[in-house]
């Protein structure tokens, strides 16, 4: 704020000097020019009246010639100074307006406002760098959960979009370069409530820089980065970036899983959903010969995973000078029938349209479907704006970079245990996963259930932590039953139990709890609210533990003791 005041003062120096001087000369002149009073005698105006007259003359208010009608000499003086003072005022006001429109001042004001808004946040929040497709999606889903974030982006129009978005929460945003440490600090990385920094800019080098800055300034901060290059990933990992997400690798790994473990794939696909979203049916990837159009970063990642899963992959790529291109690759776009036939489209079971151009990908899908209508189609969508085109039921699976990134990061930020759960689930076979998906469908038939984390701590589980300090054995089953009737179990699934010994997937109801244990549950929103009773209310928990309502007052306890 100081710098803004100084900027204004310095710029206003010249007009103020001019204005003061003009007023001083006009006033002085009026006191020196002889006038005439009502009796026709020579009269000199005093400073008080002269300054009064100049004040309303300068602003052209015009209260008249006071206290006596002017002589011609006085009128001549006033005439000259009316014009001079008006011109000076125009100059002064013009300078002030120009100053207000000054980019530097506006930037300084915006920065100041942003800093104040960030400082006022008094709950956990995230810093999101880059408000493009991915960033805006992520922020939108965080906002829906009433989670705060502060946003940095290079482009002003994106920040305007953030300000204009209608959501229940106001989020501060600033047009600034996120790779500058000063701007990251403005965005609040040193704020005690800042939990995490998410670097989602289009530029790998900038993301890397954000990660380094954040880790140097505040090592305990969780840093999540987007990266498209393996070298940058290695570099990011070298100084302890907590999560590095490569959208292509991440999608390809899931796809590789889908080949042999369709239910495992379904499980991880489901857990990327928001609650209430429709549950996708199981996807069976056909086995055999696949065509892969485009051998860029996406194509390469898919190629590696599919070949590892035992598929034959025929690459189609327009640039024959590409490094590591398989020797039998067909050279061409894949948008014409000739190339597709040459690649053997009639014997293929599926095609992946993986070019970095959406119209090419659509063209590949249409042409290939005409040649072989039974093809299983996977498409890469590059622009979020094109989702209507890809929504047309031509492709069985659409991969969109911003979607993959946003859902993955959202899970990391809001439910970090989900990733632990999924990686433990991979250790089981596919029938186990199938069994689990059926159980999830049973507790929530209409859509994906709510998934939430629960920490056994004094503020989030008051009753349980009290009981534990008294040495009572509290088990998971005490939480998953209804506090109205403890023989009725709530429609919830305990997915993960993480304690001092490690993390356990699908814990049994008999597992005992300890302080600071973390649990992951899936179930309806209503059962989540019910469970809060068992966690927080001592009467409810007491009933769950003993089957009887414990007296809460001293009198009640005394009466109970007297009766027994």
């Amino acid at each position: 704020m100081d710098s803004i005041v100084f900027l204004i003062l310095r710029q206003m120096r010249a007009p103020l000097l001019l204005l003061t001087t003009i007023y001083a000369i006009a006033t002085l002149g009026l006191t020196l020019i002889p006038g005439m009073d009502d009796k026709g005698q020579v009269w000199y105006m005093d400073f008080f009246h002269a300054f009064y007259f100049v004040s309303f003359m300068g602003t052209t208010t015009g209260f008249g010639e006071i206290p006596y009608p002017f002589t011609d000499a006085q009128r001549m003086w006033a005439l000259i100074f009316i014009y001079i003072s008006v011109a000076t005022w125009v100059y002064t006001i013009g300078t002030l307006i120009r100053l207000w429109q000054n980019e530097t001042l506006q930037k300084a004001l915006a920065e100041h406002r942003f800093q104040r808004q960030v400082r006022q946040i008094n709950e956990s929040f995230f810093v999101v760098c880059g408000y493009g497709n991915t960033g805006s999606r992520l922020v939108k889903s965080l906002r829906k959960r009433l989670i705060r974030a502060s946003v940095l982006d290079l482009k002003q129009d994106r920040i305007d979009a953030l300000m204009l978005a209608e959501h229940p929460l106001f989020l501060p945003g600033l047009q600034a370069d996120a790779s500058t440490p000063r701007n990251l600090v403005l965005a609040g990385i040193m704020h005690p409530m800042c939990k995490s920094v998410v670097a989602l800019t289009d530029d790998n080098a900038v993301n890397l820089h954000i990660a380094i800055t954040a880790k140097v300034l505040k090592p305990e901060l969780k840093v999540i980065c987007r990266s498209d290059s393996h070298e940058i990933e290695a570099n990011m990992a070298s100084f302890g970036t907590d999560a590095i997400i490569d959208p292509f690798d991440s999608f390809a790994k899931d796809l590789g899983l889908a080949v042999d473990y369709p239910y495992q794939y379904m499980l991880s696909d489901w857990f990327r959903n928001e609650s209430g979203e429709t549950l996708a049916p199981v996807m069976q990837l056909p086995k055999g010969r696949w065509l892969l159009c485009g051998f860029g970063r996406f194509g390469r990642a898919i190629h590696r995973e599919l070949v590892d899963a035992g598929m034959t992959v025929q690459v189609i790529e327009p640039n024959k000078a590409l490094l590591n291109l398989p020797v039998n690759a067909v050279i061409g776009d894949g948008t014409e029938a000739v190339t597709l036939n040459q690649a053997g489209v009639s014997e293929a079971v599926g095609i992946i349209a993986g070019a970095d151009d959406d119209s090419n990908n659509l063209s590949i899908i249409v042409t290939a479907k005409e040649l072989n209508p039974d093809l299983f189609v996977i498409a890469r969508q590059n622009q979020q704006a094109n989702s209507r085109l890809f929504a047309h039921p031509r492709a069985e699976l659409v991969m969109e970079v911003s979607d993959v990134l946003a859902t993955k990061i959202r899970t990391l930020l809001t439910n970090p245990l989900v990733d632990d759960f999924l990686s433990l689930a991979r250790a089981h076979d596919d029938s186990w996963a199938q069994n689990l998906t059926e159980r999830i469908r049973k507790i929530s038939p209409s859509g994906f259930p709510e998934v939430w984390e629960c920490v056994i701590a004094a503020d989030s589980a008051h009753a349980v932590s009290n009981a534990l300090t008294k040495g009572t054995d509290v088990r998971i089953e005490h939480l998953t039953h209804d506090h109205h009737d403890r023989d009725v179990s709530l429609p919830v699934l305990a997915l993960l139990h993480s304690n001092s010994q490690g993390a356990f997937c699908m814990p049994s109801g008999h597992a005992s709890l300890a302080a600071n244990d973390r649990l992951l549950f899936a179930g309806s929103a209503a059962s989540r609210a019910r469970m809060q009773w068992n966690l927080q209310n001592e009467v409810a928990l007491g009933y769950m533990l003993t089957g009887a309502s414990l007296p809460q007052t001293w009198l009640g306890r005394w009466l109970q003791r007297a009766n027994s």
Partner: protein
Amino acid sequence: MNLEKVVFAFTIILALTLNFGFFTGDIGNAAHHNVYELYAAIFVNAIATILKFGDRTHMGAVLLAASLVADIQLVAAAGVWVYAVHVTDIGLTPAIVASIVSLAGGAVIANTISVSLLVIETVMLRR
């Protein structure tokens, strides 16, 4: 030599000299204190204040503060004058003149601080 520095020092010193010129004389005697001199002192002080705008150094801040003090003292002196002569019919009695002059005397001290700071800064910067 730098014209800006000449103008700056000139204004600050002139503010002090005019101010002192008005202040000096018998404290209760209106004949010793000219209204034009007070007017000139107010004007030059205002110019000196504006010249000090926008200097972010510590020295600049103290200079600006001293100038603002002098402005307030002098404007208050002029206010007392206007009140005595025009608003009420008290006129320039010795008591009124004494209060006008003592207010201007306060401004002299503030202006002296300004000039001293200017001299100190000049001495420190001597190369």
